[in-house]
């Protein structure tokens, strides 16, 4: 197939002089079944034939095929390009471009799957590398990057010179370098290309280097001299004795071990009147008994003898285990492993930074979810189990606004203050109706707000259904800020981080620099004294609670944007939020920040230790928090003096 491609290129270059009686339709009819139901492995024939034909119509056909515009008309089996416009279907003849009207029932679509579309893309590469349309050139480059192939090197090199777009030119030459590293003709050319890639930690460069460095395990009595040895393996250190022996068995260098199943099968096959191998059947209910019976059979040469431990050790001792590169040239593998080693260090550092960014992002989400609670619980000391439901209310507000305002940017701008207003209202109402009466009974506040929480959750289910609702972020928040191929963070997470920062500053400002903040602190520390100074504690409590709830609403919009909006989303955050506040230290916004950071970084740290089980990470994190609180009940940032009194 590769050879065919290179022939195809030359044919393509020569095509004006090639005369052929064939049409595209003829070729398609030869492979009608394959065109209608293409498969990745078998479509090559069709593509080769088309490319070989050198027909100018092959190119538009391939593009149309990739875009799923090809149909077969059932009466005559002819293929057309179909364009649907409302109810009308126009059919274009593939060779002449003549149009006709199609009837829906007669037409069967050809549906090339992802693999076939990639194969078509590969075939198109040759045509598109120098296409005047930059998008097609881009597509061709992408196609090469996805599946590199020796045949692509020459046309790619040829197209670099004439590439008008500077950015694409750079991509092309980078790609050419990668192709040269693998498919370069001389070792020198490959080594040059390899050393040119040093320091580039992108995934595709590492992919190229790793492919060059692909190695296979081998075993032999002596180290083979003709192989390019990557590493000699030490039994007991690089591989276990069992693995080593299994490798020997696989290479037919040692007899296979007799497993327990083998023994049982052999014994079952050799039962002789209540005895097997001279041992009564009743005694075969232990491994020792069975081994004895098996040895009895082995002595009669009915079965192969068991391999003793000493024999195993001797066999392993007598052989050398090694890893050998597939690439025979040591100079190339040396250059590649050197380049890769330099990259690996970079990658490790980048991964650490990336993990740090993820942790920071998680911390900011926890902070945002908990900051409202830091006010109501941390400052006022009110347990509000419905806090999570305020988050949910905020998120649903965002969802409802998007139903009426289709512009996502505008809808978010409306939703944020609206969510604040709604949850502020809900918070104030709840404070007036319920919490006000329970200020001296904190445990009952917990239960009453829990009642509100389940009622609100169920209400949301009744109104919006149990299905998750979409809250779509505006386009400018799509995508990610990419530093390199390893470090990247999505814009939406950056936005949440920025929002968390803003709220931190805002709350600090309100509490420390405004009249309201002064009054809030006064009321929290000593309501009686505050009242006698002319402050209305009722009003202050109401406003503070409203503020905390309102912020939860805004947090809800943010959380909904990055994850999902469901009636249960609040419950996901409530326990974590309380722990964030408690771990950080009650009564202090900085404490909440510290708590969120600790939890965020801790969780990512544990996840990194055990990447295959996120649930375990959450479990251990909560266990850690429980222990942490046991030993430091006042949290990280503990208040000192009279304010700390319960």
């Amino acid at each position, binding site marked *: 197939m590769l050879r065919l491609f290179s022939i195809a290129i030359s044919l393509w270059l020569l095509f004006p002089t090639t005369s052929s009686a064939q049409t595209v339709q003829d070729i398609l009819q030869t492979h009608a079944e394959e065109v209608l139901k293409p498969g990745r492995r078998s479509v090559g024939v069709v593509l080769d034939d088309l490319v070989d034909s050198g027909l100018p119509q092959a190119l538009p056909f391939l593009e149309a095929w990739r875009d799923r515009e090809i149909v077969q008309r059932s009466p005559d089996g002819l293929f057309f390009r179909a364009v649907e416009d409302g109810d009308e279907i126009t059919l274009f003849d593939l060779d002449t471009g003549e149009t006709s009207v199609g009837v829906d029932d007669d037409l069967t679509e050809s549906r090339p799957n992802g693999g076939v579309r990639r194969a078509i893309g590969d075939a198109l590469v040759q045509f598109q590398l120098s296409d005047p349309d930059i998008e097609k050139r881009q597509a061709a480059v992408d196609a090469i990057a996805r599946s590199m192939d020796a045949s692509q090197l020459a046309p790619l090199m040829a197209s670099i010179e004439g590439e008008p777009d500077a950015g694409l030119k750079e991509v092309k030459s980078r790609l050419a370098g990668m192709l040269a590293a693998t498919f370069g003709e001389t070792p020198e050319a490959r080594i040059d290309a390899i050393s040119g890639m040093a320091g580039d930690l992108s995934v595709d460069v590492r992919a190229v280097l790793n492919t060059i460095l692909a190695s296979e395990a081998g075993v032999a009595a002596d180290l083979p001299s003709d192989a390019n040895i990557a590493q000699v393996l030490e039994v007991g250190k690089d591989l276990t004795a069992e693995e080593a022996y299994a490798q020997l068995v696989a290479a037919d260098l040692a007899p296979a071990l007799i497993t327990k199943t083998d023994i*049982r099968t052999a014994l079952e096959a050799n039962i002789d009147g209540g005895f097997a191998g001279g041992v009564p059947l009743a005694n*075969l209910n232990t491994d020792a008994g069975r081994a004895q019976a098996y040895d009895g059979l082995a002595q009669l040469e009915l079965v192969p003898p068991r391999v003793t431990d000493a024999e195993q050790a001797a066999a392993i001792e007598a052989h050398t285990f090694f890893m050998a590169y597939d690439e025979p040239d040591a100079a190339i593998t040396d250059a590649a492993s050197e380049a890769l080693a330099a990259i690996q260090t970079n990658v490790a550092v980048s991964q650490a930074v990336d993990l740090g960014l993820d942790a920071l992002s998680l911390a900011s989400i926890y902070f945002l979810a908990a900051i409202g609670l830091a006010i109501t619980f941390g400052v006022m000391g009110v347990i509000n189990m419905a806090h999570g439901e305020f988050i949910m209310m905020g998120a649903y507000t965002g969802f409802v606004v998007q139903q009426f305002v289709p512009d996502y940017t505008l809808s978010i701008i409306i939703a944020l203050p609206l969510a604040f207003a709604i949850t502020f209202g809900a918070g104030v109402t709840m404070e007036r109706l319920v919490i006000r009466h329970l200020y001296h009974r904190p*445990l009952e506040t917990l*239960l009453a707000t*829990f009642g509100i929480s389940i009622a609100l959750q169920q209400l949301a289910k009744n109104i919006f259904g149990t299905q998750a609702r979409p809250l779509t972020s505006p386009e400018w928040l799509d995508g990610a800020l990419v530093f390199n191929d390893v470090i990247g963070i999505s814009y939406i997470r950056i936005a949440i981080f920025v929002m968390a920062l803003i709220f931190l500053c805002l709350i600090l400002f309100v509490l420390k620099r405004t009249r309201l903040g002064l009054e809030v602190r006064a009321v929290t520390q000593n309501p009686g004294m505050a009242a006698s100074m002319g402050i209305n504690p009722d009003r202050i409590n109401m406003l503070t609670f409203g503020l905390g709830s309102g912020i939860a609403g805004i947090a809800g919009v943010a959380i909904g944007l990055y994850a999902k909006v469901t009636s249960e989303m609040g419950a996901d955050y409530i326990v974590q939020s309380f722990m964030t506040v408690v771990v950080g230290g009650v009564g202090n916004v900085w404490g909440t920040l510290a708590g969120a950071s600790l939890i965020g970084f801790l969780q990512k740290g544990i996840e990194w230790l055990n990447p295959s089980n996120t649930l375990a990470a959450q479990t251990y994190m909560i266990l850690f928090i429980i222990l942490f*609180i046991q030993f430091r009940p006042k949290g990280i940032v503990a208040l000192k003096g009279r304010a700390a009194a319960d």
Partner: protein
Amino acid sequence: MQRSFLSQNPSVLWFIALLALFTIIVTLMSEVTGVGLISTSFVKTLGKTLCLCLVAIAMDVVWGYCGILSLGHFAFFGIGGYAIGMWLMYARTEGIVLESLAGQAIPPTPAEISDAIGNQIFGVVGSSEFPAIWAFADNLYLQLLMVVLVPGLLALVFGWLAFRSRVTGVYLSILTQAMTLALALYLFQNDSGLRGNNGLSGLQNIPGFEDASQASISIVFFIASAVALAAGYIFFAWCMSGKMGSVVQGIRDNEARVRFLGYHVESYKLFVFTATAVVAAIAGALYYPQAGIINPGEIAPIASIYLAVWVAIGGRGRLYGAVIGAAFVSLVSSWFTGGGAPNVNLGFYTIQWTDWWLVLLGVSFVVVTLFFPKGIGGLFDLIVRKQS
């Protein structure tokens, strides 16, 4: 001593008498006696409700009497269920495995038996090895000991750490909730060795009684639950009526003062916390064989909060209040969610109680907390006051 205790607490006698009467009536009307007025599934529901009453009593003692709002007692309940469930599953599977292996040409080795059992139990969740926590699962008596020991030790260690650090009030509530969450998350993992989200199932089939009908098994468990409830009630009533009860209630009302009087507050709290945890676990061990399946969802933090809700609605600080709350709310709840309640047609909207029951429960809970802090049990006070 016993007499004076009962004479001081006539309500205990009343309660035991009513419970006995109830048990006898249900037994007589069940399918076992052939009357069949009460179906087996309803006997199971009643038996389970009795277990819930027992755990509610424990909750009442720790919260209503001692003032510790524990949001973790349903976790202990679940641990009890898991502990007994492990034996039930193991023994049942062992029977099946031995029977199928008996047909083989040569007798199985102990390792083969254990592998086969492991494969049967864990095969459905994609593993076959026996985790270490199943070490005692083959022995009923050891596993029964586990029902008491595991939650007891957990409560002891947790309580000791928490009370020693003087973690009180809402902080303790949040901490116990975190413990429950951690336990539920742990059990949700498949790697936990307790079959993850699937939990332990088929627990209603009691090994050794394969031939017994579910009708008779359900009655046995119903009576056992009633006896356990009665015993728990007497035990806690006795504990809370003596001097110890006074100290414990003193701690609830003003911990600092009791401490200044020279009592070692932490020890009392630790005792109450641990004892109630053990009783909760026993209730769980009786509950899950009737439910038939236990899984981590049962232990989720919300279940423990519901427990508090029952006690609060029934009336804190009185044991019969807890029983009333648990029985009333859980039965009403299953009536509403089971579609038993008629829909209300408002003309423009039809209230379907399966959808609106939780809203009603939530709101009624707020109302009870705000206006009837003594719960349903408080009604008795009103009656008593009117009479006098």
